[in-house]
């Protein structure tokens, strides 16, 4: 009975994380399309939500690899997964509040690492795996996207330079529908699978699925796809504003180059099995497309804040995950701890959103 309750809480928390993932990372996909007026804000997030939903069904190959090679498999218990998810949700909400794009995947890994450290000590974490699979890719992703987007926009300007601005802008706005669609699909395939993996691991730990016949049940696929699509549709407008207008003021050619470079880097990394964060890639692409036109066009102060958020993601989500694990253990190994933490988190989130609604949200689909 106790383990059934914990399983239900883990599944609910995983879907809540998936929702914040879509909500938080919508900006990666739609911000450039909105800022260059390639699409209206509502159309952009609707299209992104639909393509995120579709993307979740394209591939299930990496659903089983969450935290694989980073945390010892023996250390992953339902309570550790729960605490990790709470850490990731907490960091996603904090960075959303300040309008900072940060990697939801890194928040999830950080949360699980922190909870595993609190549960089993340093032996639970594979330091080399954390460095090679998370830290190094985080350093490399924005650099590759920066260079590709910079070269792409330089050549695009050279090719269309003699034409009138009207047809050029119309053409690149049309192109952004395609490049933004590819990004949304790629995001759906990458990120919804992490939630599927978490839920399926919890089902294996609970004994609903045999570890010898690991498969993702259909209801897990559909519920994960729905949660990320709903989060995307509701949209994190604060981060959309940061990505779309606060880093650089983009023209449609820059928007297309940033999105095209982002999609190319994400798909190349998927193909060669070298996981890169969509957030880091798109942010690097936007900065590259801006800097290639004029280095001073990039607001480096905003970019610096983003990098600080990236650096803090794993330790901050890890600290929240560890604290959550510690709090749940105060109430023993049963379901009481996770239940209390879930109720407190839910009430806190409702209070924050209620306060925002009372103040009137300054950044919405109609005002962006």
């Amino acid at each position: 009975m106790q383990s059934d309750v914990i399983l239900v809480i883990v599944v609910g928390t995983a879907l809540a994380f998936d929702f914040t993932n879509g909500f938080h990372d919508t900006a990666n996909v739609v911000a450039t399309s909105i800022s260059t007026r390639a699409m209206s804000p509502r159309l952009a997030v609707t299209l992104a939500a639909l393509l995120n939903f579709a993307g979740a069904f394209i591939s299930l190959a990496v659903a089983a690899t969450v935290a694989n090679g980073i945390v010892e498999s023996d250390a992953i218990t339902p309570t550790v997964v729960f605490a990790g998810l709470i850490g990731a949700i907490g960091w996603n909400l904090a960075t959303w509040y300040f309008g900072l794009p940060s990697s939801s995947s890194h928040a999830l890994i950080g949360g699980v690492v922190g909870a595993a450290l609190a549960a089993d000590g340093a032996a639970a974490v594979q330091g080399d795996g954390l460095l090679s699979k998370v830290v190094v890719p985080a350093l490399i992703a924005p650099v590759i996207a920066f260079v590709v987007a910079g070269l792409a926009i330089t050549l695009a300007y050279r090719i269309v330079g003699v034409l009138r601005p009207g047809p050029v802008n119309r053409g690149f706005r049309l192109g952004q529908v395609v490049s933004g669609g590819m990004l949304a699909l790629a995001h759906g395939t990458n990120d919804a699978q992490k939630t599927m993996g978490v839920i399926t691991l919890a089902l294996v730990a609970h004994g609903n699925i045999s570890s010898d016949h690991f498969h993702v049940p259909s209801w897990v696929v559909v519920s994960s796809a729905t949660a990320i699509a709903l989060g995307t549709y509701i949209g994190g407008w604060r981060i959309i504003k940061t990505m779309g207008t606060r880093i650089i003021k983009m023209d449609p050619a820059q928007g297309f180059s940033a999105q095209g470079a982002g999609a190319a880097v994400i798909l190349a990394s998927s193909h060669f099995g070298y996981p890169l964060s969509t957030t880091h890639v798109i942010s690097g692409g936007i900065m590259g497309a801006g800097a290639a036109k004029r280095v001073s066009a990039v607001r480096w102060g905003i970019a610096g804040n983003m990098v600080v958020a990236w650096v803090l993601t794993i330790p901050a989500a890890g600290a929240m995950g560890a604290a959550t694990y510690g709090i749940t253990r105060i109430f023993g190994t049963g379901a009481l701890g996770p239940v209390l933490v879930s109720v407190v988190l839910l009430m806190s989130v409702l209070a924050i959103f209620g306060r925002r609604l009372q103040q009137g949200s300054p950044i919405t689909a109609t005002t962006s």
Partner: protein
Amino acid sequence: MSALGSTIVDWGTLGKVALASLVSGVGIAIVFSLAIVGAARFADMRRDGRAIEASAYAVLLTLSLAAVAGAVVLGIVVMAKKS
């Protein structure tokens, strides 16, 4: 130092990712820019009654759009085949 670096960074795979990203990201920008040139020049030439030049730009437009469509299909195949 180099052994440690090789353990932590898979330079071979990283190089492949960087090269494939560069070729596909820059390539898509080039072919889409050529499609825009083709569309804009085709309209100009047709308006001026220059049929041969208009046909040449129509071919450029068609080939460029076909390349973009091919890249989109390739991208979806890569997503579906992800390992």
